[in-house]
């Protein structure tokens, strides 16, 4: 080998380069470039966007939950107030003593007896009136008193 060999157009010889390396090089670089910022717009990384979206979603969820909770509380308080007022009014209107209560109850009892009697009287018409009288005699309360 002599010095002419070294100078004989070997400047780009020697090193191996993968096929089509220089053709594909442009795309490799372009893919790694920071996204160009358009005038007046804010470019955020995807993770930042996602975290902001998640925070907004969470905040709106909490807001809706609190609103509904508040609404339910108000309703139940209103219902309770109404129920109490009605009860108070009811209690105030009731002025009844024991005698009146007894009378009401006894009237109801008499009514029920009367109804029962009327029903029994209005049973089939073949019933003999004598038989009825005898039955009444047998169960006369006067007799019980005498005993």
């Amino acid at each position, binding site marked *: 080998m002599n010095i002419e060999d070294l100078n004989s157009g070997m400047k780009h010889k*020697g090193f191996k380069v993968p096929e089509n390396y220089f053709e594909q090089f442009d795309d490799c670089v372009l893919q790694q470039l920071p996204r160009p910022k358009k005038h007046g717009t804010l470019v955020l990384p995807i993770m930042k966007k996602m975290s902001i979206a998640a925070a907004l979603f969470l905040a709106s969820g909490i807001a809706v939950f609190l609103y509904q909770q508040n609404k339910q509380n108000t309703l139940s308080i209103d219902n309770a107030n109404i129920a109490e007022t009605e009860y108070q009014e009811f209690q105030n209107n009731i002025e009844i003593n024991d005698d009146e209560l007894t009378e009401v109850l006894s009237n109801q009892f008499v009514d029920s007896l009367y109804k029962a009697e009327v029903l029994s009287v209005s049973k089939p018409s073949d019933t003999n009136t004598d038989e009825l009288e005898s039955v009444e005699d047998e169960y006369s309360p006067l007799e019980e008193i005498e005993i």
Partner: protein
Amino acid sequence: MILEAFKTISDHELMSTFVKEQKPERLFCELIARYKVKVYWQIRRILIQHDDADDVCQIVFIKLWQNAESFQFNSALSSFIYRIAYNESITFLKQKKRFQSFDDLLDADGHYAKSIDSGMEMDGDQIAAQLQKALLTLPEKQRLVFNYKYFEDLQYDEISEITGTSVGALKSSYHYAVEKIKKYFNFD
């Protein structure tokens, strides 16, 4: 993607329009098209291995996009881009702890010489492989200057702009590099 109209305008006009129009992709593609091969080979000769060179080359163009506004129009766009490539390559080497300073050898442990011998990085051209192995015996500064001067045909003042080293120091480094290469191949 690349419009024919942009192919005829100068580097400065292209860069100026690129910045004014808020970095449209079609103009950036034209910038990549103009410099990707040159930038790749500069980096590849410093880093030797394709995967490393590929990573750093992509970083260079991403940095060009990010720092387009800081380009001063009183120097060549090529120098601006090559300086990014140079800085990123050195940063990469330092991260890999392949060297600490320019006086170090990149390949003190023979790692790159082995990869050249294995045929993983070289295409089997014996002269090219031997030259790369010879360059790996040089201190890093001499190897870098030799790469820029011999392979890229860059002028000393342009290499000075890229590396931040004085022209005198560059000339001296190149001279030592050539002498050592000659010695390596017994060209005396």
